[in-house]
C-alpha cells in the first residue's frame, strides 16, 4: 500500500458510523422490514395469490426480526421462507432459477407462513410446475427445537388446501454433512435429507444419481413414507398395465402367478416386474417412460446340484462336473445366439458354471448346470454401454497434476470406473484425490486432504 492509500485508509476508518445493536433494534422494531415493503403488483398473480396478498397488504410488519424457523418448499422450484416466532415471513429466498420465477414480484414479507405457503404453491400450479403428471411437493421445516419444528410441520400441512397433490413433509436440522451436500449439489437441505432417506433403504443408489431427480420422482421411489399425503403421479409413465403387457408378450406366456410390479429407479425410472409361469421365474426391468425392456432374467428352476441334500459331499464338486468349460461357453453362446463376445468370464461354483460376457451392447449372465449342461437361469441387460475413454490414463494423470500444480508425487493410483478415472496420490503429507471424466477430461470432483 502506498502512502496515499494509507491516508485514504486512515481517513475512511476515521468516519463515524452509528451504533448497530441488534438487541436494541429488536426492541425498537425492525427498520429493514419497513423499508423493504412494496405494494404487491396484483395484475401478474393468480386469483389465489391476489386473495392471499390482499390479506398480506393488511398485515402489519412484524417487530420481531429474529429467524426462528425456516420452511423449505421444493417441487422443482426451490424456495425457502425464513419466519419468526410469530410465524410471520421475514424473508423469501429462491434457491434456483425456477424458484425466482415462482416468487416473481410477490411480496410475502410479513405474511403468515400458511398464507405464504399457499400463495407459493398456487404460483407453482399457475406456472405449470405442479401438474397432473408431477404432483409432488416437499415441505421441510427447520427449527432448533425439534418439537416446535414438528408442530409447525403439522400446522402447515393442515393448512394446505389443494386436491390431487402429494406432499412429503419432514423436519430437518442443519447438520454439517447435510449442508455440505446441499452446497455441493446446489440443492435444498430438505432434498438432501429425502435423498439420504432413499439411499438408506437402497444402498445401490448414489447421491449423484438422485440429486438430479425431481421431487415427484423421489416421491415415487420413496414409496411408503409415513409423512407423505396423497400419492405421487405416475401419469408421465406408460403405466403398470402396459408394462405388464410388454413383459408377458416378451416371455410369451399368459397364465402367470405370484405377480408383482413396482416403480423404481435404476439410472432411469423403471417398472420392476416379477412373475412365475410354466415353473419358471421371470424378472423384468422396463423403462417406465419408453417401455423398452432394460433387463430380464429367466430362472428355469433347475437344481444346480444333483446331490443337493447330500451333506456328506465336500464343497469342491468339481469331480462331478461332466461338461467342460468350453462346452458350457458354447451352450451359453448358442442360447444367446451370438459369436463375437468380449469381457468373457467363467467360473465353476457349487457345480454350476457362472458365465458372463458382453456382445452387441448387451451384458449376458448365465448359470449352467455343470452336470447336465442345462441353463439354470440367465439374464440379459440391454443397457450396457462400452466404456469409451477418449482420455488416456497418462493424460488423466497429467490433468490432475496440472490442476494440483505438483510434480513429485507418491502413492499414485489410477482406476477407470464407469467412464471416469479415479486418481489418488500424495504430496508430502497431503492426500489428493481426483475424479476425471474419461471422455471429456473434465475434473468431476477433487479433494485435498491434509493430515
Amino acid at each position, binding site marked *: 500500500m502506498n502512502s496515499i492509500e494509507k491516508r485514504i485508509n486512515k481517513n475512511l476508518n476515521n468516519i463515524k458510523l452509528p451504533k448497530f445493536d*441488534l438487541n436494541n433494534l429488536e426492541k425498537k422494531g425492525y427498520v429493514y422490514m419497513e423499508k423493504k415493503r412494496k405494494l404487491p403488483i396484483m395484475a401478474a398473480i393468480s386469483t389465489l395469490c391476489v386473495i392471499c396478498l390482499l390479506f398480506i397488504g393488511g398485515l402489519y410488519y412484524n417487530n420481531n426480526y429474529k429467524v426462528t424457523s425456516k420452511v423449505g418448499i421444493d417441487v422443482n422450484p426451490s424456495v425457502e421462507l425464513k419466519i419468526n416466532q410469530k410465524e410471520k415471513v421475514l424473508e423469501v429466498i429462491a434457491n434456483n432459477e425456477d424458484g425466482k420465477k415462482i416468487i416473481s414480484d410477490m411480496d410475502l414479507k410479513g405474511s403468515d407462513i400458511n398464507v405464504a405457503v399457499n400463495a407459493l404453491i398456487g404460483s407453482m400450479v399457475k406456472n405449470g410446475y405442479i401438474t397432473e403428471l408431477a404432483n409432488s411437493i416437499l415441505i421441510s421445516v427447520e427449527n432448533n427445537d425439534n418439537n416446535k419444528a414438528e408442530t409447525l410441520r403439522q400446522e402447515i400441512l393442515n393448512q394446505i388446501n389443494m386436491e390431487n397433490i402429494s406432499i412429503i413433509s419432514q423436519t430437518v436440522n442443519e447438520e454439517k454433512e447435510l449442508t455440505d451436500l446441499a452446497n455441493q449439489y446446489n440443492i435444498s437441505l430438505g432434498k438432501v435429507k429425502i435423498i439420504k432417506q432413499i439411499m438408506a433403504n437402497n444402498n445401490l443408489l448414489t447421491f449423484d444419481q438422485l440429486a438430479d431427480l425431481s421431487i415427484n420422482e423421489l416421491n415415487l421411489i420413496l414409496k411408503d413414507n409415513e409423512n407423505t399425503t396423497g400419492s405421487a403421479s405416475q401419469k408421465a409413465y406408460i403405466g403398470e398395465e402396459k408394462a405388464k403387457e410388454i413383459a408377458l408378450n416378451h416371455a410369451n406366456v399368459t397364465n402367470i402367478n405370484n405377480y408383482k410390479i413396482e416403480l423404481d429407479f435404476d439410472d432411469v425410472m423403471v417398472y420392476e416386474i416379477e412373475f412365475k409361469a410354466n415353473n419358471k421365474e421371470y424378472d423384468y426391468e422396463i423403462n417406465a417412460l419408453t417401455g423398452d425392456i432394460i433387463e430380464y432374467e429367466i430362472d428355469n428352476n433347475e437344481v444346480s446340484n444333483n446331490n443337493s441334500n447330500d451333506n456328506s459331499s465336500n464343497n469342491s464338486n468339481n469331480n462331478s462336473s461332466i461338461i467342460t468349460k468350453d462346452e458350457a461357453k458354447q451352450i451359453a453362446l448358442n442360447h444367446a445366439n451370438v459369436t463375437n463376445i468380449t469381457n468373457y468370464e467363467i467360473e465353476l461354483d457349487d457345480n454350476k458354471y457362472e458365465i458372463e460376457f458382453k456382445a452387441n451392447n448387451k451384458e449376458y449372465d448365465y448359470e449352467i448346470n455343470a452336470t447336465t449342461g442345462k441353463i439354470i437361469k440367465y439374464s440379459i441387460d440391454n443397457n450396457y454401454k462400452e466404456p469409451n475413454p477418449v482420455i488416456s490414463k497418462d493424460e488423466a494423470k497429467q490433468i490432475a497434476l496440472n490442476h494440483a500444480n505438483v510434480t513429485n508425487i507418491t502413492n499414485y493410483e489410477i482406476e477407470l470406473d464407469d467412464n471416469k478415472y479415479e486418481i489418488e496420490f500424495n504430496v508430502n503429507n497431503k492426500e489428493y484425490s481426483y475424479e476425471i471424466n474419461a471422455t471429456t477430461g473434465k475434473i468431476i470432483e477433487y479433494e485435498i486432504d491434509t493430515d
Partner: protein
Amino acid sequence: MEVSNYLERIAMNDIEAFNELYNLINNNVYSFALSILKNNEDALDVTQEVFITIYHNAFKYQNQNKPMAWILTITKNIAYNKIKSNKKTINVDEIEFISKPNHDDKILIEYLLNNLNDDERNIVILHAMNGFKFHEIAKILDLKITTTLSKYHRAIKKLKELTKEEKNE
C-alpha cells in the same frame, strides 16, 4: 479472530459476535457503499442493510474462504439497487468523522470521491481498505484484471498529482 469465525458464530445467532463484527468492518462496508453511491445517507442505509443481510445469511457462507469478498459483493448488490440519480459530487462535510481530518486529508477524500471515475474510485477504496489482491477486486467489480490494474495505476497517479498541487499551492 477472523471474519469467517465471526460469521460462523453469527450463523448460530450469536448477537455479540454480530456486534463485534459490525465494529470491526463497518467502515469497510460503508466506504465501498459510499464509493458506489456518493451519498452519505444512502451509504449509511446500505451499510445497515448489508449487516442485516449478513445476520440472516451468515449460515450460507460456509466453506468459502473469502469472507470480505462475500460481504463486499453483498454491499455492491445492495448499493447498486439504491442508485437513484447520477449525482455528480458529494460534499465531504456531510460525513461525520470521529476526529476532524486535517486540511490535506479532507482535500484528498473530496478528490477521491469527486474527481475519480466510478471504477477508479471503487478500485482504490477496495484496495486501500481491505488489502485485496487485484484479481479479487476484479472479481467483485466484474472487471478484467488488466483493466483493474491499469485503472488503479491511473487513479493513484491522479491522486499523487493532486497532493503535489496541494503542496505547491
